[in-house]
């Protein structure tokens, strides 16, 4: 680096430049600072790399006619193969919606109780339990779902099999719960106390304050929590692979088996011929998943920031 550049008049705030003029950084410090910058750059690079790589391996199959994106059949080994993504998309969508419909009311309710009503000691215990729930590996949940929940669902609804969208959704709902509970609680906590005090001063009860003041004020945060929960559910693989039944067709109810995008990748990647249309189709599914989670997470992020600025 050119020393004259370093001693040039200040570009930004004053003190920083004064510092530069008097302090000559030893090489170790430069190296470390370089490393810090490099690491940050690489994070961007990784995302680009993943996207690029998925796109390259999918080989533009989406644009060839073999990948009938709107096809109703996923028959990758037939002659000719059919890579209709609709049944998989429908499967993912169904479990995601069902799981979210279960998880959001329960999660938000629990968050309100934990954040607003629970006595301090109870609150700590509840929070730790929620964290434990988040930590349980998905393969353990899938294992128990297969052994315990699926037979239960089967006998409860008198079904031919318990490996259904409902079993998967129940498992996924509880897997998304920690995200929803903790983020909703954050959102409630970040509502300024002045609003709360104002409501109390007007004679509102705690519940009235929560319903009329806190919840509306925390709405963007709660929506963000929901979106992140959705992201978690869509991306979940092992539990779904083990308990959703994996039948690749468009479901008519939650009591039928379904097959998701993630489970398809995990189950089929092992047997494909590398570089074949099937291999490319699976990477295309990866790309689709990447796209969906990208959109969902970006929306969540926007909501969080809107919540912060308002």
């Amino acid at each position, binding site marked *: *680096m050119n020393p004259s550049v370093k001693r040039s008049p200040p570009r930004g705030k004053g003190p920083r430049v004064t510092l530069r003029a008097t302090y000559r950084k030893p090489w170790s410090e430069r190296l470390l600072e370089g490393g810090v910058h490099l690491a940050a750059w690489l994070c961007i690079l990784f995302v680009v790399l993943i996207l690029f790589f998925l796109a390259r391996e999918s080989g533009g199959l989406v644009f060839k006619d073999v990948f009938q994106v709107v096809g109703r059949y*996923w028959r990758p080994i037939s002659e000719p193969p059919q890579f209709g993504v609709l049944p998989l998309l429908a499967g993912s969508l169904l479990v995601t919606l069902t799981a979210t419909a279960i998880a959001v009311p329960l999660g938000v309710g629990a968050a309100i109780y934990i954040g607003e009503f629970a006595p301090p000691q109870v609150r700590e215990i509840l929070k730790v339990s929620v964290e434990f729930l988040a930590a349980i590996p998905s393969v353990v949940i899938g294992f128990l779902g*297969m052994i315990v929940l699926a037979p239960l669902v089967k006998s409860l609804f008198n079904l031919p099999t318990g490996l259904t969208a409902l079993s998967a959704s129940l498992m996924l709902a509880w897997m998304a719960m920690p995200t929803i509970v903790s983020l909703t609680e954050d959102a409630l906590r970040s509502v300024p106390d002045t609003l709360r005090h104002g409501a109390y001063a007007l004679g509102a009860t705690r519940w009235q304050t929560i319903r009329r003041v806190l919840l509306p004020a925390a709405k963007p945060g709660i929506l963000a929590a929901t979106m992140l929960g959705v992201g978690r559910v869509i991306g979940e693989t092992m539990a779904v692979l083990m308990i959703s039944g994996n039948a690749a067709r468009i479901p008519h109810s939650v009591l039928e088996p379904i097959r998701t995008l993630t489970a398809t990748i995990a189950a089929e990647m092992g047997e494909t011929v590398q570089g074949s249309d099937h291999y490319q189709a699976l990477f295309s599914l990866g790309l689709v998943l990447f796209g969906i989670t990208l959109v969902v997470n970006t929306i969540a992020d926007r909501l969080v920031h809107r919540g912060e600025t308002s």
Partner: protein
Amino acid sequence: MNRKFSIKLFLMPVLLVTFVTSCARPVNEESQIQVTGSDTMVNLGQAWAEAYMFESPETFIAVGGGGSGVGIAALINGTADLAHASRSMKEKESAKAEENGIHPQEHIVGYDGLAVVVHPDNPVNELTLLQLAKIFSGEITNWNELGGEDLGIVLLSREVNSGTHVYFKDNVLGVAEEGTEFSENALLMPSSQSIADEVGQNTGAIGYYGMGYISPQQRPVAVGTSEGFVLPTVANVVNKSYPIARPLFIYTNGAPEGTIRAYIDWILSESGQAVVTAQDFVPIL
């Protein structure tokens, strides 16, 4: 941050990637064999490895599953010494292998009789190939059409691209008309064991898998051929009277040498084939 510094930072990732690439995988130790591939064969491969390591402790064998495709790809990429496969290599794979300077050699190491299984309480115990084709393609949907109870049939299959699924589709569903598809209602289970578990709990279920997975929780049905109904037993696969059986392969890079050769020879020997029998597969001897 000035501009030159940024340029340097852009270059650094490139250097880093080059660096990681250059630490390529070292040549395998002579005494270690990496095996990977077919899920159908993973238990067999594990049993072979366990028995062989007991006899020759100086050799070390790592067994991985994942699927026939994973195994063959690993062989092609030089990251595995042996590939288990329950299907033969596809043209595309051979071409890719030659491109990489790998010359896969095929060894038949045993046979797999696919058993069609139902719940032990199911009275139906004999089915012809044509009936099986109609059941799995969704034409027959109730057990009472086959002389059983009035109960819907729950179809269990492996995922679409497992070697087992492909074989069953070509050789059972295809008997009446080539290219017949599995019924859309078939549940695609991630593994043979999960089919076994589900059949064990579900009186309406029917599934198929390698003979090795049969346990008292399921009952195999006798499959009808021109010679009458035949049960999936080792003897019936050996004398070729049982119709749904397929070869199991191991692929090596070129003619095997050294440790790998010794291992393959052992697998093909009596002791290796005894393991095949013990795992309820069918030996080649």
